């Protein structure tokens, strides 16, 4: 009996010890693969054609990242709309400039640098990097032709230009980081480029667009199929027109009026065509896709996008942009208060959370054309501008322009048409800024016990400030 027990114990011990030596007991998994996803290295090292296609579609998708945040924030600062959240007043205090003093005063301060309004910044910066990485990856690939590589590069650069311009406009005089270090080196993230000025930022964005055009010109065909948002802009030739439309925007912010007209010539501008023509952002409720978050059900009390009453007061009678069934904004059944602001109207541009939204449209191109023509300021070009303006006006049921045919009067008219035609599309605040008219934006100043300031630009995010403080 005793012998048996000894044997039993010895057997148990041997089992334990031997299982140790075999290594099962003392082994841990050394897998570097996440069971939930694919590793980046696998894809970027030597991508298959399928993976290149997926990366292109990925870029097409992430181009939308941050865009709605950008629209909502810039529309609030530009006093178009308020995101009237029932449970967070920062959307109509901080964003409308009540806390400027606490973040460095009227000249330096804006919103909370560590606050909730930085989503556009990280999203646009990510898209910018993703485009850069796609260019790099496509050029390394052996699975696509040289002509396809160029087409992918042109696609990526164009999208890079589009989002970087929006990023730069939000940051204004703060500028943006202008270079990437070598994306392939492990430490590149630790060496971000230096911040430039607004002007040097525009030069960079122009280069993105021009490089994109050059690459497209050398491209043969896109290795992937565009989604429905790019219907009409999905070949090398037509996508190049979109590229030129983006380049025209850059030229406009550079006040390069000759450049605006040149680039518009290469774009899809049609002075007598459909105003809404142009590529669109498309949205869906599918997994890993995004919905159009700017859609809010009518008369919503949770977080409607309501209009400043000053905006409503500026509507011209019978303008079908703001009256009738096609109106972009309509009266609410009950007024909505957001702090001291009471709004009668709300945004009604979308019918559902999968409704398309505008990326860039012919209407904007026509208005850029008109502005450039006004700036050339000859009797002939002023009349060409009036013709373009009248096309817009008459399209919306208004009578033809009857004001003075002078540069000053027509600039005012162009800005006015841009305000209504490009409402809630990320333009008003930047138009007023480039024309040095921020002080004219209403409402601002002391209202009730608070003081509202239209700031020049969004704060540089705290993470950037702290990074530069640590790495001077």
């Amino acid at each position: 009996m005793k012998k048996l027990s000894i044997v039993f114990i010895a057997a148990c011990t041997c089992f334990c010890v031997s299982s140790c030596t075999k290594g099962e007991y003392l082994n841990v998994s050394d897998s570097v693969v996440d069971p939930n996803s694919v590793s980046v290295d696998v894809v970027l090292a030597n991508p298959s054609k399928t993976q290149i296609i997926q990366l292109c579609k990925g870029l097409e998708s992430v181009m939308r990242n941050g865009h709605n945040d950008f629209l909502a924030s810039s529309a609030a600062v530009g006093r178009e709309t308020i995101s009237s959240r029932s449970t967070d007043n920062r959307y109509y205090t901080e964003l409308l400039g009540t806390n400027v003093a606490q973040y460095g005063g009227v000249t330096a301060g804006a919103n909370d640098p560590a606050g909730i309004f930085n989503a556009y910044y990280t999203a646009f910066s990510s898209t910018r990097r993703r485009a850069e990485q796609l260019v790099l990856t496509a050029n390394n690939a052996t699975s696509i032709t040289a002509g396809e590589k160029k087409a992918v590069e042109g696609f990526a650069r164009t999208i890079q230009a589009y989002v970087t311009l929006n990023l730069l406009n939000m940051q204004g005089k703060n500028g943006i980081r202008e270079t990437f270090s070598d994306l392939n080196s492990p430490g590149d993230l630790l060496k971000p480029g230096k911040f430039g000025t607004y002007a040097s930022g525009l030069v960079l964005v122009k280069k993105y667009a021009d490089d994109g055009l050059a690459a497209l010109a050398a491209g043969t065909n896109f290795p992937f199929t565009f989604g429905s948002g790019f219907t009409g802009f999905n070949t090398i030739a037509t996508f190049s027109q979109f590229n030129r439309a983006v380049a025209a925007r850059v030229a406009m912010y550079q006040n390069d009026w000759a450049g605006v007209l040149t680039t518009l010539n290469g774009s899809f501008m049609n002075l007598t065509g459909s105003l809404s023509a142009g590529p669109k952002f498309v949205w869906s409720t599918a997994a890993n896709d995004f919905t159009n978050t700017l859609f809010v059900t009518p008369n919503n009390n949770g977080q409607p996008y309501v209009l400043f009453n000053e905006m409503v007061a500026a509507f011209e009678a019978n303008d079908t942009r703001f009256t009738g069934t096609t109106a972009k904004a309509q009266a609410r059944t009950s007024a909505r208060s957001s702090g001291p602001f009471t709004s009668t109207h709300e945004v009604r541009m979308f019918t559902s959370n999968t409704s398309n939204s505008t990326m860039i449209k012919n209407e904007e191109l026509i208005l850029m054309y008109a502005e450039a023509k006004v700036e050339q300021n000859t009797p002939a070009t002023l009349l060409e501008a009036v013709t373009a303006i009248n096309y817009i006006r008459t399209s919306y049921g208004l009578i033809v322009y009857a004001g003075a045919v002078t540069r000053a009067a027509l600039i005012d008219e162009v800005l006015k048409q841009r305000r209504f035609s490009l409402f809630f599309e990320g333009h008003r605040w930047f138009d007023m800024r480039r024309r040095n008219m921020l002080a004219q934006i209403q409402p601002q100043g002391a209202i009730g016990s608070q003081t509202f300031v239209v700031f020049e630009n969004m704060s540089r995010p705290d993470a950037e400030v702290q990074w530069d403080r640590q790495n001077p």
Partner: protein
Amino acid sequence: MRKTIQPVLLLLLVLCLPSLMHAQTVINGRVTESVNNNPLEGATIMVRGTTNSAITDPSGKFSITVPNTNAKLQVSYVGYITQVIDAKNSASISLTADNSNLTEVVVTGLATSIKKSNAANSVATISAKELAGNTRPQTLDGAMQGKVPGAQISANSGAPGGGFSVRLRGISSINLSSEPLYIIDGVYVNNNQNATGAGTGPFSGATGQTAGTQDQAPNRLADINPADIENISILKGPSAAAIYGTRANAGVVIITTKRGKAGKIAINVGQDFGIVRAINLIGMHKTIWDKQFTVGTDKASGTDYTQEKALKNPTSQTWDYEDIIYGNTGFISNTRLTLSGGSDKVKYYAGVSRWDETGIQKRTGYKRNSARLNLDFQPKTWWDFGIATNVVNTVSDRSFSGNDNNGVSLGYSIAYLPNWLPQLPVNGVYPSNKYTGQNPLEIVDKGVNNEEVNRFIVSFNNTFHLLRRPSHSLKLTMQGGIDQVSQENFVHMREELQYQQQRPNPGAVRNTYTRGRNMNFQTFLVDQLKQKDFNFTTSLGAVRLETDNKTIWFQGEGIPRGTTNTNNASVQLSFLDLSGWQDVGLVAQEEINWGDKIIATGGVRFDKTSLNGDTKKYYAFPKASLAVNISQFDFWKVNAVNLLKARIAYGKTGNPASFGSKFTNIIPFAIDGFTGSSTPATVGNPAIKPETSQELEYGLDFAAFNSRVTGEISFYKRDIKDFIDVFSLSPGTGVTSYKAFNVGDIENKGIEIGLGGSPVQNKNITWRTTVNWWRNRSKITRLLIPEKATAATGFGAFGTQRLRVGNSPSQWYGTPNVNGLPTAYEDAQPLWQLSWSNSVTFLKNFEFSMLIHRSHKNFNSSLNQEITDEGGVSPDWSNLNETGVPVGSARILGQPGITTRNFIQDASFTKLREASLYYTLPKAVYGNIGFLRNIDNARIGVSGTNLFVWTNYFGYDPEAANFGNRPTLATVDLLSFPSARRLYFHLNVNF
């Protein structure tokens, strides 16, 4: 190295046969307690110099074989002072109660333990009676509140079903879990806070689609029935916990459940009834809103209010919605039955219990059904085998509270609800609410946030006594177990709700299934060698832990009336998340005890885990300690002081990065029906190392007048090295962060002082009292990365925690920014805490106890005042300030002079956490009544938890925390679910 162990082992096996002792004389005796001379059942009698032992029977009697009548007997019983007597004096042995707990045995290693009087660390212990014997805290962590010096234990919300965070000795981490490791009978307990989805877009909307930080979920320790627990040992810092290595950075809580004792069947039946009320309601604006009608609030203009009121409430009626929602009384029933007993070969403890509680809010509640069977076998004299099984089913309905973006969370809604706006349902129709977008009473009556957990915890321990001689013993122990948690969450918002009607696809359901599994196994060889006055205890072992978790959720939006199945939804989403890891540890420890005078311990644990960047590398976690029992030396002549011990201990522990930190993944992005992919905005760190903590603790313990006065004082310095945090990069690079990086160091310094005693101890009255005072200060001493806000610790200008060198990681920051840097405010950590517990037995049959807890100068980021001011409902809103503006209007953020200063609030409090009074019914009352004469002992009592709170804090509970278990004690308060006061009536009968 392993190759050499094997032959040594076999040699030991061959040499050391289980040996039988030869009996010579049998003596009999009886053990009683000294106050009432009642018999002590289960006392241990050991013959010194032999391994002979015996246990007393229910009448206190024992018999034992001794070599001769001059032999010395050592008589011990937990809670009483151990005596050594001559065998010939054994007829009547009287033990004196030890109020100092010095005789308690505390765990110091994975396979060894030590008497508290010999311990080199301050190890907090909580007995069954202290834990849940006096009153009935709902959950185990709640039961520990105020009872552990060095700990900060706070309830995240008062919602039924728990939700606590436990912090031992300051800040252990910034971004990883800093809950202590819980071990129940050797099983690594799953204490996850599993996401429920209640905080996501279609529900409260506090976060986007990713569930987690703002779901207000409970942590899973809530499943453990406090009544099953025999005792708890808390290893507060690395100097005590080093032997647990890479999982012990935040301390270890070792829980031992009740086991059977040899003897007759002990039957215990208990029934508690209780009521639950909110401790405190903030009180809403009482008058009919004259000022709001004139000037309006942040939410609406005065004109708007006047029109709305004229339309909906012409009769100027008012309602107290806070009282309607949170002013209800809940009921508790807690029923349990346990049987225990056995022989020297088989012992058992079997118990079932049911806790059923309804909350202070309608349709909330918590149920826990728990069954336990613990068995201990001694099949052979050299073989012990034990198994512990626990099966638990819990169900909770927690409703919606905390942060919100949809008008769903009730605390939040109440803050924006005018008292004149009719919200009560009329013929089943809930009037709409234009101010928050949702009628809160409709959420109370229709919103569902349900959780069901089915869990089993099984553990075994197996010991082979390879050698048992008076001077030398050797044993091989194996221990292991499984903790499997299956959690189902069901969150439902019906289509007809006002806010759902305003969503693109009304009607939302989210089903979440979470399965967590921990499996662990350890093998140890423990050798005990006695050489003259020296005892050498050597342990060698290997430990393995495997964790495997899976979460699946299905969400449907656009669910039509009449169904809750997501298959019928217009928009369906699903998600799968897998995670798992393995840890391996090798342990060696040596303890040298010189006649209980000097006790020195040294040990080291080598750990590797699949979570580290280098999965092959073993990280070393050493420990060393020295305890000197000055009073045990011959030169000690101060008889009044029966214990004086100086101690010093050092140890190191670790904490690996969370799962996924190493990986850099392609992220799927779809568009227009095609799924593409893109590079991520956060990248993994394949070089990640564990964060570590090393601690030096030293202190003094004393006991005087036969342990009637005891005290201890401990100092510690605990340094967190290479703490892991998200490394925020310049976002302009397009990558926001490394998911995990070893970024800096934190220092914790603290003092813990405990004083206890029995000021009165006689036949009529025994009064025991204990005072504990403790404080901890933390400081960031090194930071590799730029200063940054700590994730999920607050809301911008309302106060956020940041990493700033030289300051505390739990400190608050906010506006105004000076030179681009936010201003520093006070700390969320209390300056000090104090607890005072008392237990008085009087008139023989009465027992009274109470526990008072003070937390001093701990600060919350409180949005309570802000949101009630924005909504115009704060009680003093209409009072005019010196410039004639209503104070409620002038206090909100954005008004002149309002900075973060206004939101960082002193949340100091004093709470009467527990009080109880019991009466043991004299046998004469029931001894002659039929069946009742079978009763051995019957007790009735009343008790309560959170009976009184003294605080100046504006809110439901100064302890609330919106973000749950954040490592830096981010006590952000957004009118969380009010904490409850519970009052009980108890009946307890032993057969």
